[in-house]
């Protein structure tokens, strides 16, 4: 496995605010990455810098081993589908697909046609007259049919209904299996995509909070449910991410792996363990007060 994206100390400053602060990570070939974080966390800025559409204030970016700025050998291997993508005023769906075909060497026209039909896209309609969901669907079609070695989806499902979103996820997994490539999915609908993600990068307030294998990540915290008083006793001395109670029953989400002693203790107290979903974990990690967040080191 070789790193196809390497980011070192990436920083982007707008005036006095840091949109991205000292972010470093590597992406390996043929994996599906989740770039997660709240709106305004800096995800889109990072993706814009990866594709040389915005300029870093500091740090280094290498994509396919080279700097992406004005670099054709990099840019032709990249497809970035963003929510804010603009189209020429007169462009129809067909025009977008035709230009995409010219820009992406691996473009599969037959697959693009099949996808436009699956998403019920009217080929002749102008982009400006499409609904938000249809606009997103065009992005999905381009992103999938381009088969770019690095495909980036930034909030690709805005306005898509559950059926269309499900179709996007299924198609992506299907095509990914046949044509492996590196995919970055940037989203805040974490639960929906969590089954696809192999690796998670979590950005919060411009900082990289997490860079972890998805499976290992969900094993890094757990929930424990039981009588409120016993939960408190169990949780004391542990790093509690959140605690909820309903009547006499409480649950606590605890950071850390379940050790043998924890199992024994829980059994003694009549407590039950429950897995934490990726979404829960991320929400916990990004919800806390600033000071606490620094302390959370996984």
């Amino acid at each position, binding site marked *: 496995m070789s790193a196809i994206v390497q980011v070192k100390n990436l920083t982007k400053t707008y005036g006095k605010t840091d949109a991205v602060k000292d972010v470093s990570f590597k992406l390996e070939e043929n994996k599906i990455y989740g770039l997660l974080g709240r709106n305004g966390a800096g995800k889109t800025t990072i993706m814009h810098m990866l594709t040389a*559409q915005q300029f870093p204030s500091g740090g280094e970016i290498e994509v396919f081993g080279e700097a992406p700025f004005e670099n054709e050998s990099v*840019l032709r291997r990249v497809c970035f589908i963003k929510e804010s993508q603009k189209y020429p005023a007169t462009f129809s769906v067909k025009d977008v697909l035709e*230009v995409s075909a010219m820009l992406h060497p691996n473009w599969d026209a037959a697959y693009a046609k099949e996808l436009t039909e699956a998403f019920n896209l009217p080929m002749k309609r102008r982009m400006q007259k499409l609904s938000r969901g249809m606009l997103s669907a065009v992005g999905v079609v381009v992103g999938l049919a381009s088969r770019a070695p690095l495909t980036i989806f930034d909030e690709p499902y805005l306005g898509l209904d559950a059926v269309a979103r499900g179709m996007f996820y299924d198609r992506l997994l299907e095509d990914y299996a046949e044509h492996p490539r590196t995919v970055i999915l940037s989203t805040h609908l974490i639960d929906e995509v969590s089954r696809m993600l192999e690796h998670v990068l979590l950005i919060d307030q411009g900082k990289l909070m997490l860079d972890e294998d998805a499976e290992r990540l969900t094993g890094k915290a757990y929930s424990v449910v039981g009588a409120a008083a016993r939960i408190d006793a169990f949780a004391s001395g542990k790093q509690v991410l959140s605690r909820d109670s309903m009547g006499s029953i409480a649950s606590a989400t605890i950071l850390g792996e379940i050790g043998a002693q924890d199992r024994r203790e829980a059994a003694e107290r009549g407590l039950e363990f429950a897995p934490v979903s990726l979404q829960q974990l991320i929400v916990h990690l990004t919800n806390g007060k600033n000071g606490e967040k620094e302390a959370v080191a996984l």
Partner: protein
Amino acid sequence: MNTVANGRMKAVTSTILKDKWSWFLLPWIISGSSFVVNLIISFFVEDKIKTGGVASLYIYMFVAGIISVSNTLPFLLGFSVKRSDYFWGTGRAIGLIGIICAAGLTLLSVVESDWIRGWGSELYFFHLPYYSEGSIPVQFLNYFLVIVFLFYAGFLIACIGKRFGKNGLFAFFLVSIALGTVMSYVMTYQGWWIDLGDWLADRTMLELAGATAPLTLLCMAFSYAMLRRTSA
């Protein structure tokens, strides 16, 4: 510069030329409607009419240069196109459009002056004194150079706007106006306006149109410098 047009540059050219309405029809509809109005008037007027209505086509090209950038640049940068490919791909498109417009204007000038003199009602719209002087190739070259110059003047303004935002564009115009005012004051003070007028009167259309070429190159160079640092 990559002189051989690569596929991605072609995608830029094709993106621009897909808007056939704006590039191949609208310039003629605009100048054509001015022509029709003048033609109708010319039937009611005894005198010979010489009108500068064809200027509308040139003004359109200037405006098109401004609009083209915001219409295509964000789209193409978003689709991983290099800024230099955007620049040269646009150049190819405008070169082609310039050739078509100049050829059309030359043809109409010849029709008006030689084939159907004054459209049968003494209207001179496409063949004007001074502006249309010279042989057919010279006329073609003149029209082409002025069209391309105006496009790139508009293109530069749009690129400044993209690079430095609204405030940057505002500052640019403010400085330009200030410089223009100072220059104009100096010229008045030194009595240079008359000299300039005399000098211009001595120049042929070819000399004036030819003088736009270095200005066009300057606009292109500055636009390119702006584009290099423009974010999507």
